């Protein structure tokens, strides 16, 4: 206890030096500690999502890009599938296969066009409201609701893909009808709509006033027995209401409408193999087992982790050398003090023990602080840790 009193008094008196030394060691320890805490959780979250979405179908291209697109709603440059591709799977009996259309964003969150079954198959529950029931409705993830302060009854407007496509994409005002419970998954950060709503945003369908019944000459270019040709003055509705809902219609064959991916939410291995077999017959369709791609991704992450740890070791050695230099200089500066302690009856070992305890205490505080800070960092990003890596 006696020696502790001296060591603590010295550390407190030279608190700036003590703080710098603790800070240097803390920073040296922090990176490996954070990685050791974060990586297992990242691995768990990525693998959980992959196991929930075992098989992904998409256009030929990068399998990893397809998995990140279908599971984590990342943008893709790959060509689209057709809605008919999904219909073919339905006809083959794969009920738990869902189409996805992920091209648009609102307030920087991806708009996911899919079917109602998405919520059932993923086991999603509602914090408020219910699933979308008609065109123009949307369901938002819990983080979207929290960060934007939105709830049931509020609206969101879709953004055009770029400022060059203002005319091509449709700024649709969507009505929020439900908020999902938090799931620590990408669903928390997404806006879900019916597939047809994304097609409206893509300008494949629209609603406008009944031109045939209109007497306004500015709205009609030509009227004949075959039909009525509307002028450019006819503006499409930007919001779907009970009154204008019936006016919404699509141009073209819906089977040719685009989807960007399909997911099979079926944990039966046999179903997965059969679906993969069905897809293999098609050259314009690729099948990806999400678990395989996520393992590839994790391997890359672990390699990066090893690289960072290796760099940290070098930084740590440099830090320890500087630490040793500071302690060595401190020993020189305290020579007179040590001589005084010896004259007053302290052993040479006592003074060495003082140095030892001081080094140990600084190291212990640094390591403990690094452990605490790393836990704090891990805790702060624990819920959606995967976002930092995908």
């Amino acid at each position, binding site marked *: 206890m*006696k*020696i502790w*009193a*001296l060591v603590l*008094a*010295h550390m*407190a*008196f*030279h608190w700036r030096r003590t703080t710098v030394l603790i800070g240097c060691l803390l920073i040296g320890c922090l990176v490996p500690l954070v990685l050791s805490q974060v990586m297992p959780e990242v691995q768990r979250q990525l693998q959980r999502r992959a196991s929930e979405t075992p098989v992904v179908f998409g256009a030929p291209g990068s399998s990893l890009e397809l998995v990140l697109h279908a599971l984590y709603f990342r943008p893709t440059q790959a060509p689209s599938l057709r809605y008919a591709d999904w219909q073919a799977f339905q006809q083959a009996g794969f009920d738990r296969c869902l189409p996805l259309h992920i091209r648009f964003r609102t307030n920087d969150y991806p708009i996911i066009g899919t079917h109602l079954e998405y919520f059932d198959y993923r086991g999603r529950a509602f914090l408020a409201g219910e699933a979308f029931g008609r065109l123009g409705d949307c369901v938002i993830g819990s983080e979207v609701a929290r960060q934007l302060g939105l709830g049931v009854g509020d609206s969101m407007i879709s953004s055009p893909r770029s400022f060059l496509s203002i005319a091509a994409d449709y700024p649709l005002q969507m009505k929020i009808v439900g908020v999902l419970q938090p799931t620590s998954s990408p669903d928390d950060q997404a806006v879900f709509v019916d597939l047809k709503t994304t097609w409206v945003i893509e300008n494949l369908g629209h609603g406008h006033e009944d031109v045939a019944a209109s007497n306004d000459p500015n709205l009609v270019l030509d009227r004949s027995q075959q039909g009525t040709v509307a002028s450019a003055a006819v503006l499409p509705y930007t919001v779907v209401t009970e009154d204008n809902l019936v006016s919404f219609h699509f141009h073209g064959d819906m089977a040719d409408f685009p989807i960007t991916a399909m997911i099979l939410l079926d944990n039966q291995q046999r179903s997965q193999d059969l679906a993969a077999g069905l897809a293999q017959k098609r050259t314009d369709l690729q099948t990806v087992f999400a678990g395989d791609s996520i393992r590839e991704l994790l391997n890359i992450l672990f390699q990066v982790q090893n690289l960072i740890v290796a760099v940290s070791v070098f930084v740590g050695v440099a830090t320890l050398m500087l630490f040793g230099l500071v302690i060595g200089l401190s020993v020189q500066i305290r020579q*007179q*003090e040590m001589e*005084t*302690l*010896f*004259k*007053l*009856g*302290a*052993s040479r070992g*006592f003074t060495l023990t003082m140095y030892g305890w001081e080094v140990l205490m600084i190291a212990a505080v640094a390591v403990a602080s690094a452990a605490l800070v790393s836990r704090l960092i891990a805790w702060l990003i624990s819920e959606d840790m995967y976002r930092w890596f995908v």
Partner: protein
Amino acid sequence: MIRIRDLQFGYPATPFRLQIPSWEVPDAARVAIVGPSGSGKTTLLHLLAGILVPQQGQIEMGAFNVTRMNDASRRDFRASQIGLVFQRFELIDYLNVASNILLPYTINRALQIDASVRKRMQELAHRAGISHLLRRPVQRLSQGEQQRVAICRALITQPQWLLADEPTGNLDPQNKRLIVDLLHQQAEVSQATLIMVTHDVSLMADFSLTVDFQSWCAAPRDASRQEAIP
């Protein structure tokens, strides 16, 4: 009683040699040691305290034969029986006044701190006029106050021998008088032997014995010169 017989000491690789054939100091004596710089005055204090070990001869401090002790015993002896006061005070800058006074109890296992020690610390500080400064960092004290703290530190263990190495060397005349009076007063109270190295002839009158150190230094002689001051 301090007894020295046939003492010889020299630092390695230096021509310095200290030789004391015989020297005795009675208990509770007040001894002033004078002599030129480098003559070995401080070395003698260190030999008496067991900080240095002579190459030859015997040093008896009362019942303790310092030259026959091992290193650990000499440290314990020094911590419990010797009070040391230095010219440059040698206080520990990161401790406050109270912790500096109690320092011998902090650094040596032979000494155990208890309520009586703390009470003695209060009394010593009161007598030295620094009882209101006990919680103050020593860096914020004047030179005179710092030396008073050093004297309290030397006396806290109730030593039999008080060894002061030019304790007034860095002080102004007013503080010099105050510190010397304090040393004599405290030595009187605790019946300790006071041996003080000094260059200040104005202080000689306060001591019962004065030792001119020049005779022991460098050139070996048969006898020391001790001179009683009336």
